[in-house]
Every structure is written in C-alpha cells, then in structure tokens.
C-alpha cells in the first residue's frame, strides 16, 4: 500500500514547481487516518501533521512523483527523525544496574532475561533480581526462565522489593557482577503506592538505565502511561515488546514524543533470544502500514 509508494519516493529530486497547500492538505488527510489507525495518540498526530504541513508546503516538487507520494516521503523521514536512532545501553557503573518498569503484562520479566542473554553475548556477567514481590509465582517465572540459560538469579525471598533490591545490589558488588537487571512488578501509572515503590527502588539503586517496557499493541493511553512514568519516576529509555504480532506500534511514536527518551530495544517473540536493537526505519514503515 503506502509503503511501496514510499520506496519509490525516497530516492529522486526534480526541479519544477512547489507543493501547494491543497496538495499537502489532501496528502496529509490520508496520513492522518493511517497514523490514528496505527494507534498514534490523537494529539501527537495533530502536532505531527501540523509539523509536516509546515515543512511540506512550498517544498520543491520531486520529479516523477505525485504530490501525495512526496508528502509520504516527507512523513516517513519525519517519523524516522522523531523515533530516533538506536542507542546502546548505558553501562557506566560497576556493576551496571538496569531497572525495568511498566504496566502489568507488558513483558518485563521476559525482557529481563532477554537482556541478560544479550549482555552475556556481549561478554558481560549479569545478575537477575526478581524484585516483583507481588505477582503470584513471579519469582518462579523469572527463576525458571533464567535457569534454562544458567543465568544467576538473586534468590533471597523478601516481602519488601526495595530492601530486596538493596541487598541484591550489595551482593552483586561483592560477587563482581557486571550488570544487575531488576525485574519489578507491573504497576499502574496512577497507583501512587506502587509508583512510590518504584521511586524508592530507583533511589536505592544507583542505576545506569531505568527502562519503560511498553506493549506494542498499546493504544491511545500510551501517552498517559509514558508521561506519568517519566514525570513521577523518570526513565532513561524504552523497550517496545510483542512486535512479532501485527500491532502497528503507533504507541512508540507517542511514547517517544512525550518522554523524549530513546527506544533502545524491541521484543520480537517469547524466547530469550527474541530481543533486537531498535531501528526507526522498520517501525516507521510499519506505523504507516
């Protein structure tokens, strides 16, 4: 559909004429629908369309492309620009603590083990910390998934996630782990008690990364989730999960716009190997459908 036209629009330049406001308005109407169907937040879409409108109006017309295709090219490039390039994990401390936060069921526990796998491939020695003391069998879930690959898991069971995180970190220092990955309980951005726990974990652990794990099928609410986690806890990056499905993933654009933080990795399956570096081009075409 739009993506094939995109491919052609990317590579040429011509000299005649400029895009009229009418061209731009018509082209953007279709894009607007596509973005909304892709779950990009309404206000984010409005702002994005306005941005592109200003940029596109008066642009030089490209040879052998309809104005519609040219606008698509501008949109695609703008999306890539906003989504941002892949940024690696910050691993400056010793050990490097990585905290995972997010809504219930977003994929944190699975992602924690995926990160351990990725980091071990890079020669690191990771420790997994099951700091979800709430969900039934959360500990067993992490422990058993980690066990399949012999990843060490901090196994002292404490009822207090903050105390547990503190002790786990001390042990990691003692035992010379390179990276400590904290899996935490799923929590609502509006649950003050659980947000306070997140803040306490954050303050207890001198973290390198505090990553928001977001389900790619999240709808309009992604802006609320992103904004609240960013304002109330403060995140350093995002991991978008379940991109092996057919969700368009527009939530990614919303989250990126609201937090300004990079999407670092994407989950593309349930297996521990299924974590990839985020690259904006693929997500941009996917969002455009």
């Amino acid at each position: 559909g739009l993506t094939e036209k995109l491919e052609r629009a990317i590579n040429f330049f011509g000299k005649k004429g400029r895009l009229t406001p009418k061209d731009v308005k018509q082209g953007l109407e279709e894009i607007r629908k596509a973005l909304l169907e892709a779950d990009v937040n309404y206000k984010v879409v409005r702002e994005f369309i306005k941005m592109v409108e200003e940029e596109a109006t008066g642009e030089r017309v490209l040879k052998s492309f309809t104005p519609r295709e040219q606008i698509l090219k501008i949109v695609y490039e703008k999306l890539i620009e906003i989504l941002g390039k892949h940024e690696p994990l910050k691993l400056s401390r010793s050990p490097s603590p990585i905290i995972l936060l997010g809504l219930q069921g977003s994929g944190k526990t699975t992602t924690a083990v995926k990160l351990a796998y990725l980091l071990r491939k890079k020669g690191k020695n990771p420790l997994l910390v099951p700091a979800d003391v709430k969900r039934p069998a959360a500990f067993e879930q992490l422990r058993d998934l980690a066990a399949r690959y012999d990843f060490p898991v901090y196994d002292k069971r404490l009822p207090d996630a903050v105390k547990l995180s503190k002790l786990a970190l001390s042990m990691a220092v003692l035992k010379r782990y390179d990276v400590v990955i904290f899996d935490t309980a799923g929590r609502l951005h509006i649950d003050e008690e659980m947000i306070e726990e997140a803040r306490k974990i954050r303050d207890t652990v001198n973290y390198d990364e505090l990553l928001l794990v977001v389900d790619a099928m999240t709808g309009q609410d992604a802006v609320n989730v992103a904004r609240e986690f960013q304002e109330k806890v403060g995140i350093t990056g995002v991991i978008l999960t379940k991109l092996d499905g057919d969700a368009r993933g527009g939530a990614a654009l919303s989250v990126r716009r609201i937090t300004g933080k990079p999407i670092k990795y994407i989950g593309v399956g349930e297996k521990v190997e299924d974590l990839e570096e985020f690259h904006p081009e693929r997500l941009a075409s996917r969002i455009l459908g």
Partner: protein
Amino acid sequence: RRIITRRDPQLLEEIEEVLYEGDLGVELTENILEELRKIPPEKYMDRIKEILISILEGVEVKEKEGKPRVWMFVGVNGVGKTTTIGKIGKMLRKEGKRVLFAACDTYRTGAQEQLKIWAERVGADIVLSQYGADPGAVAFDAYEAALHRGMDELLIDTAGRLHTKHPLMEEMKKIKRVLSKKNPDAPHEIVLVVDGTTGQNALNQAKSFHEALGLSGIVLTKLDGTAKGGIVVHVVKEIGVPVRYIGVGEGEDDLIPFNPEEFVKALLG
C-alpha cells in the same frame, strides 16, 4: 435546514478528540461524527450514547448449561487470562459452585504455579501438568477429573498466543476439539480476554480468535487504569460477541459484570 452555529466545528473537534482518545478507532469515530453533523448540537451527547450503547447491547448473551460447564480462556500474551480465571473462579465459588481449574498453559515458566496459587486463593481444585505437555491432553484429563469429582465448573487456562502465529492458533483449536469430543456442548463458554489498554489491534485479535474458535464472550481487563477500552465497541460490532465482564484490578474481587451504559459513560468522560 438548520443554521450552523459557530461553536459546532469546535464542539465536533472536541468530541472527535474524546472518541479517538478512548480508542474508539477511525471507522466508528468517523461514522459518529457523520451522524452528528445532521443533528443540532444539543442532541449530540444523547445520540453518541445511543449509538454506542445500542452496539454493545445489540448482542445477546447465551449462557450454556452443562455439568461440568466448561470455560476456555484465550487471548494474546499478558492480557490477564490467568488472573481472570482466578476472579471468575471466586465468583463461581461464591455461588456455591464446585470449581476446577485446568492449567493448560504448559509453555510459559511460572504459569502452572501462578494458577495453582489462584486455585488455593479462591478454593478451586486444580489439574496441573508438566511444562512441555500437550495442552490438549491436559484438557482431556481435566475434563475427566471434572466428571469424576462432580465439578460444576471447569475453567481452562491457555497460554498467551499472538493470533498471527498459525501453529499456536492450531494448538488452541485442538484444545477445543478435544473438549468437544468429550462433550459436544463443550466448551460452553469460549472467552477472549482483551487488555483494556489495547488499541486497534484488539480488532485483529478478536476476528482471528473468533474465526478460529467461535467466541461466546469477551472480558476486558485493566480498566482500573486510564485507558477507556473503546475498541471493544468496534469488536462487538464486528464479531457480534458480547462483553461479559470487565477487570478492574489485580485482586480476586476485581471483576464486575459488563454494563454498557456505565461503560459508555466512562468512555465519554
């Protein structure tokens, strides 16, 4: 003929924003706005409510009886299937029913233990299994156990699966076939669990799962957050399956019967 007052376009835009941000989706939102353009502004709110409620009420709930009555819970990963089984189990226990859970998620780590904890919490029996076991075989054993123990209700938990994964959808269909072979009426309830924070993808999920199994009901979870779950209106319109319950928290009592009027009221803020 009516006179368009100056505040119409702005009001319509505000309405558009509310509908979109509730995850109602492009098609339904555009249809509603089309309708609103034909009527005076004072009638807007009532007309929107009317349209949405009539879609949600337009599907009848058929509660099939059986002993055991077999419920099968399906849906994509992480939506709240296992937790919802715990909650429905509690609800049925409060009605004095004898309830059996079947742990047919033999794939994800911690799944069996998680359901076991729920069974203990609400006073349900449970048929557990091994990881890697065939979920159809577990369902078979669970049905036998339900008969043998005189259970009233059998609740089958399945692994989360993306509807785009053909082999997983086939595995799920097999679980249903196994149950239907034991009893042609079973499963009496095939429930799609949908995460309330999901956007337009819920439509793809619903269509695929419905086509694969024939759904009898939908449970919309996590409405205790800020998401409105509006996509469920399009889902109901598309597949004609009723929403039965909504999940409003992680506890055993956090399940309420679906009420279209309340839902629409919350959606419109």
